[in-house]
C-alpha cells in the first residue's frame, strides 16, 4: 500500500487542471461520460464536476437488462452527490436486436457489444451537446487489457489512466465519492454477481503492487521473486500486459511513403492548442 500511496490533494489539483485545460483549449466547455455505478466513472464524474462545473457535465447510465439494478441506483447517487446532469438510456433493444441474428454468441462477444453500444451513445451525445467524452479506464485495467477496445476504452480524454485501482480508491475518498460506491466489489456488471477480481483471478491490491514494481520501477524477475511474488503470478501478469498491448496503440499502418502517420509524421495531439 505505501508504495502506491499518493498525495491525493495534489493529484486532484493536477487532474482538475488537466480537464479544464485540455477541454477549454479545444473551445469546448462540456463533458460527457458513462456512469456505470462503479468507482472509476464515479471518480471521473466528481473530477469533471469540479473542473467544469456540474452544469457542464452530462452523465449517462446505460444499463442492459441483465445489469444489477443496484448499479443504476449507485450511478444516480453519484450524479446527485456531484450535481451533474443525469440520464438513463437502455441499451437492451439495440443489443438484443443484434444478437437475434447471432443467438449463440458467448458472454465475451455480448459484453464487448454492450461496451461498444455505450461508446456510440456517448459519442453521439458528444455531438449533440458539444462536449468531450471522458474515459474512465484506470491504469490497472489499461495495463491488463481488461477493457473493450473501441468500447469503454474509447474516449477523448482520460483523467485517471495513470492511476492504479488502489490509487483510484484513495482519490475517491478525497473527492467525496459516495461510500457505497467506494466500498462495493468492482464489477464489469455483465451479469449478476460478476466481480472483476473473480474473473481476473487475483485482487487489485495484489496486482497493483506487482504492476507498480514491474512497470513503474522496472524490477527484474529476480527482484520480484525476492519481493515475494510467485513466478506464475509474475508470468501471468506479464503476459496479460504484453498480449493486450495492441489495445493501447493506434491501428498499425503499413509503411509506404516517407512520412507515415505516427511513425515519421509526428505531432502532439495538442498541435496548435
Amino acid at each position, binding site marked *: 500500500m505505501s508504495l502506491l500511496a499518493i498525495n491525493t490533494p495534489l493529484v486532484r489539483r493536477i487532474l482538475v*487542471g488537466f480537464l479544464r*485545460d*485540455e477541454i477549454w483549449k479545444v473551445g469546448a466547455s462540456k463533458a460527457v461520460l458513462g456512469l456505470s455505478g462503479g468507482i472509476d466513472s464515479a471518480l471521473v464524474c466528481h473530477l469533471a464536476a469540479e473542473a467544469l462545473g456540474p452544469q457542464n457535465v452530462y452523465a449517462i447510465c446505460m444499463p442492459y437488462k441483465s445489469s444489477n439494478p443496484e448499479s443504476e441506483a449507485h450511478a444516480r447517487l453519484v450524479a446527485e452527490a456531484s450535481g451533474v446532469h443525469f440520464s438513463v438510456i437502455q441499451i437492451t433493444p439495440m443489443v438484443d436486436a443484434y444478437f437475434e441474428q447471432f443467438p449463440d454468441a458467448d458472454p465475451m462477444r455480448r459484453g464487448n457489444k454492450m461496451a461498444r453500444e455505450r461508446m456510440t451513445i456517448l459519442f453521439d451525445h458528444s455531438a449533440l451537446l458539444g462536449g468531450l467524452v471522458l474515459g474512465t479506464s484506470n491504469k490497472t485495467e489499461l495495463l491488463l487489457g481488461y477493457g473493450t477496445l473501441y468500447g469503454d476504452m474509447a474516449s477523448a480524454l482520460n483523467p485517471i489512466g495513470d492511476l492504479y485501482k488502489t490509487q483510484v480508491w484513495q482519490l475517491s475518498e478525497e473527492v467525496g465519492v459516495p461510500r457505497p460506491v467506494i466500498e462495493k466489489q468492482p464489477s464489469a456488471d455483465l451479469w449478476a454477481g460478476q466481480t472483476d477480481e473473480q474473473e481476473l483471478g487475483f485482487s487489485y491490491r495484489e496486482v497493483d503492487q506487482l504492476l507498480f514494481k514491474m512497470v513503474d520501477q522496472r524490477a527484474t524477475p529476480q527482484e520480484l521473486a525476492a519481493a515475494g511474488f510467485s513466478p506464475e503470478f509474475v508470468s501471468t501478469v506479464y503476459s496479460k500486459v504484453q498480449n493486450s498491448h495492441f489495445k493501447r496503440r493506434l491501428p498499425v499502418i503499413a509503411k509506404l511513403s516517407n512520412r507515415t502517420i505516427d511513425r515519421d509524421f509526428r505531432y*502532439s495531439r495538442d*498541435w496548435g492548442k
Partner: protein
Amino acid sequence: MRDLTAALVQIKPKLGRVADNLVLIRQQVTLAIEQGADLAVLPELALTGYFLKDLVPEVALPLESPELAALQELSRRISIVVGFVEVTPDFQFYNSAVWLEDGQLKHLHRKVYLPTYGLFDEQRYLGRGDRFRAFDTKFGRVGLLVCEDMWHLSAPYLLAMDGATSLVCLSSSPGRGVEEGELGAAVAWRNLTTAMARFLTCRVLYVNRVGFEDGVSFWGGSHAVAPSGQIIAAAPEFEESLCLVRLAAGDLRRERISSPLLRDENFCVTQRELERIHRERSS
C-alpha cells in the same frame, strides 16, 4: 553591479502558436515594466510550446526574425530573457535562449544537454549547442542555462568559473511524482537550484512554464534563490504568474565574503585532473 528587480514570467504558451505567444509575452513583459521590473525572464520555448516534434521547422525563428526584433525593441525598457526555436542560415535547429538588453541581442545560448529519454525526445528534433559562456549585463555577469543544462554539474560550474554571479535557468519541466509529500519534480528542482546557488555562491533564477500538452502538466513553481541557497521568492505551482523579486547586490557581496568557495576553487587541479581522465578514457 547594481540592485535589480526581476520578474519571473510564468506563462502558458500555446503549442506551435508563435504569433499568439508573442502577444502573450509582450503583454506580460509590459506588465513587468509597469510594475517596476528591470529584467523579465520567460520559460524555455516560451514562443513555441514544448512538445513540438515535427513542428520544430515550422515554428523556428532566425535571429533576425520580426518576432525577436519586436522583443529586442521592447528590451530598451527592460532586459528580457526568452526561449524559442532558432533556425540558422544553414538550417540547423536549436532550443535557444537569448538575453535582450538596450535594444541589443546581448547573448545567445543554445541548449547543450537535450534530454532524449523517458518522456523527452529533444535530440531527435534539435541540434546540440556546444558552449557555456558567461556574459556581462547591466546587472553583472550572467550565465544562461536551458532546463536539462542545469542537471549537468559541469554547466553551472563552468558558468560560475567564467565569472557569472547570476545563473538564469529557463525551463519546461513536466509535473510528475505524486507520491505522498510534495510534487517529485518540484522537490528535485528546488534541491538542485538551491544546491547550485550555495556551491557556486551565485543567484539562481529558475523560470518554469505552466499548462498542459497532451496530458503532461508543467508545474510552474518558478523561483529565485539567493547566493546563500535560500529561496527568496516563488511563484505558485500550476498557475500563471508574474512573480517579482528584488535582488540586492549587497547579498552577493556578503555571501562571497562569508563563503569564499569560488576564491578557493582550484581551477588548475580541476583542469589537470579532467585532462588526465580524458586522456585515460580515450586511450
